[in-house]
């Protein structure tokens, strides 16, 4: 083949351009940390990349939902814990008062304490977390327990479950309906109001008061049951969180495996390409050879 000067020059230019292209590719990979910057670099990686990102976004969202779920369950549990303590105090008072040795004024003051504790329980039932009443089903903007003008206390019957999606298609109820916690109708509160009234009534005997103990016990058992249920839910949520945590790690790993560069490899490639490029330039300097002209007088 006949080779001329212009062919050498053209070829050299093409090789150096090609070398620059590779340098550019490696430098882009290094500075972005990604194997690809556009779908045509690798369509499969690009397509998977979109899916993995969506997947990761979903898992991250579920992670966010967990803190909401904890918020609900923990606040409900702590409120019901306070309610249990108040009920236990009432029970102690009733046990004291049922001694017939207690005189009227002493029972009067116990009655006062019972009324105070009842009000305390109303506040507990109307616990607000943020701007929500947590014990009123889906009507979170209205208090579940209201004190009527005639002094009676009524409990709402809203029993809608509030679900939070904690994994794809898995909805966990997070709220305790008012009727479950504080008895349907006005259960707990009417019992307490009756109790206070009985304490105030001088004709009440110790025996009459003992009758209230059974009722208080049943309410306490009920509260314990509800708290046990909350505890079980809490456990379930924790287990699910463990699973979502590992899912998140997997999703991040898949995303990274799919599109992140292997830095050691790219740096090595870049270094190799750099030396190749230097060689190409050195060769280029020699392409412009002396011609016959230089040797002719």
């Amino acid at each position, binding site marked *: *083949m*006949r*080779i*001329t*000067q*212009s*062919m050498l020059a*053209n*070829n050299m230019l*093409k090789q150096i351009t090609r070398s620059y292209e590779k340098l550019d590719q490696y430098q882009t990979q290094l500075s972005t940390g990604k194997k*690809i910057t*556009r*779908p*045509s*670099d*690798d*369509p*499969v990686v*690009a*397509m998977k*990349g*979109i*899916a993995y*990102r*969506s997947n990761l*976004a*979903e898992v*991250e*969202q579920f992670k*966010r*939902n967990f803190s*909401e779920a904890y918020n609900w369950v923990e606040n409900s549990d702590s409120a019901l814990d306070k309610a249990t303590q108040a009920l236990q105090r009432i029970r102690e008072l009733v046990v004291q008062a049922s001694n017939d040795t207690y005189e009227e004024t002493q029972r009067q003051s116990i009655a006062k304490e019972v009324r105070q504790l009842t009000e305390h329980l109303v506040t507990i039932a109307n616990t607000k977390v*943020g*701007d*929500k009443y947590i014990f*009123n*089903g*889906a*009507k*979170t*903007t209205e208090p579940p327990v209201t004190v009527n003008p005639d002094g009676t206390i009524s409990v709402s019957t809203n029993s*809608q479950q*509030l*679900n*939070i*999606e904690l994994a*794809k298609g898995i*909805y966990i109820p997070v*709220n305790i309906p008012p009727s479950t916690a504080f008895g349907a109708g006005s259960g707990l509160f009417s019992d307490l109001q009756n109790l206070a009234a009985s304490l105030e009534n001088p004709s009440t005997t110790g025996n009459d008061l003992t009758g209230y103990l059974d009722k208080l016990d049943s309410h306490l058992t009920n509260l314990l049951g509800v708290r046990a249920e909350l505890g079980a839910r809490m456990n379930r949520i924790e287990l699910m969180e463990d699973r979502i945590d590992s899912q998140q790690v997997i999703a991040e790993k898949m995303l990274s495996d799919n*599109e992140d560069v292997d830095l050691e490899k790219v740096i090595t490639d870049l270094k190799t390409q750099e030396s190749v490029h230097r060689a190409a330039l050195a060769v280029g300097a020699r392409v412009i050879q002396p*011609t*016959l*002209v230089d040797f*002719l007088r």
Partner: protein
Amino acid sequence: MLSTFHGLEAARRAMMAQQAALYTTGHNIANANTEGYTRQRVQLKATPPFPTPGLNRPNIPGQMGTGVEASSVERVREYFLDIQYRGENSKLGYWEARADAVSKMEDIMNEPSDSGLAKTMDQFWQALQDLSTHPENEGARSVVRQRGLAVVETFHYLSNSLAQIRTDLGTQIGTTVTEINSLLNQISALNERIAEIEPNGYLPNDLYDERDRLIDQLSQYMEIGVEKHPTGGNALPMAEGTYDVYVMNGSAKVYLVQGRTASVVSFSDGSDVDGDGVKEMPPDLGINTLDVSGTTVSFFSLPNGKLRGLIEGYGYQTGTDASGQPIVKGLYPDMLANLDKLAYTFGKVFNDVHQQGYGLNGSTNHPFFGGIGAVSGAANTIKLAADIDDLANIAASTKSGETGNGNNAINLANVRSLLLSNATVSLQDGISVNLASLNLPLSSGTVETNYQGWIGQLGVDGEQANRMKSNSEILRQSVEEKRQSVSSVSLDEEMMNMIKFQHAYNAAARQITVIDEMLDKLINGMGVVGR
């Protein structure tokens, strides 16, 4: 008898011929870096010897040589390599245009990234999930509205930008057609000059070079064929003649240049923007056929070339649908149509779920998205419904009056993964979507997987275009190298020739001195015996 001055004449001829060869060497060196230049060689030929046979020939021992003449100046070129080069050049033109169109689309779609449509949609779904945990919260509602707005705006941005690039492609087609027409005119003008010169027995080498260079240029726009026609008169046998340039329309040749006449390429249903009477801008809808001076050429019969690459990006009509509307295909029209389908499907399904839910104020049957009356153009017209200006109308609840009920927000968030192939889909709390009755343009996969599929397809198209582009680039380069190997000027070679011709010239001059001395002897040195 030989003439007394025979030797002088032979030496003079030698000097003239070597001089011509030296001048040509100079021309070659001068054009060593000229694009499209073919090195030239002077054909040296011995002049007819003396005597020629005949009755009155002189009786001398054998024929005597009479010297040399420069019979012609020729190009050193291989026509077959030109054909190969032009073939590869058309392929390169096609794949370059296609790779460029795909690459621009990739820039606009910007996937995979943290700012494409997929990410915007993800954020919208996330906002809905957040709303499901705080349905009574104005802030959560406001975020849903804003993220919804971001989705709508992303659809608009993608649709508008793609349409803009498509318009740019149209302009590029217009420029290309103008360029093609200008090349055709130049080629026919060169044909005319060549046809004037050749019958005189000359070889217009530099005009040949220019014509070949123009045809090389033309070959990147469309795949062409060349026919040679001798010009007659006293044209030399190696004269190239005039070139007819044609494209194939099916099995028929359509001539772009025929001798001195150039055809005009245009779009009969296009428009003329530069006022030269040629409709070089393609029709808005998409290209139907090319018009070559009245002959209709189907765009599909252009196998290669930049023009076809551009047209495939811009869009072309493949016939009419049932209602008589033209069906337009092509890289950009397809993606625009896909976005329309996506926006329409997404908006319709989302609205269907939204309208079944209840807002904070207990109201129901509010659409979330508006502007999706028709599939065509939906990506550009989709907007937030006016109802959503009141944040309380966002239907997070599945029941009226339940402010803390966020179950419908979960349903809305799950529209992303709803299988479009199902006839009906049941969601939480008794809400179900009758997909069959919505008449959606997408009927498989989910909203998300459809989009992923298109991006994948775009990537595959781009990968193929880039690969074919670099392949045809390498092939063209290899042919170009072969061509250069034959035709390009080598300075060393020219130097050698220069010295060769210089020596021959000097020797011929010396020959004259010798003959001069010989004649001097004869004329001045003889017949002086005894004087």
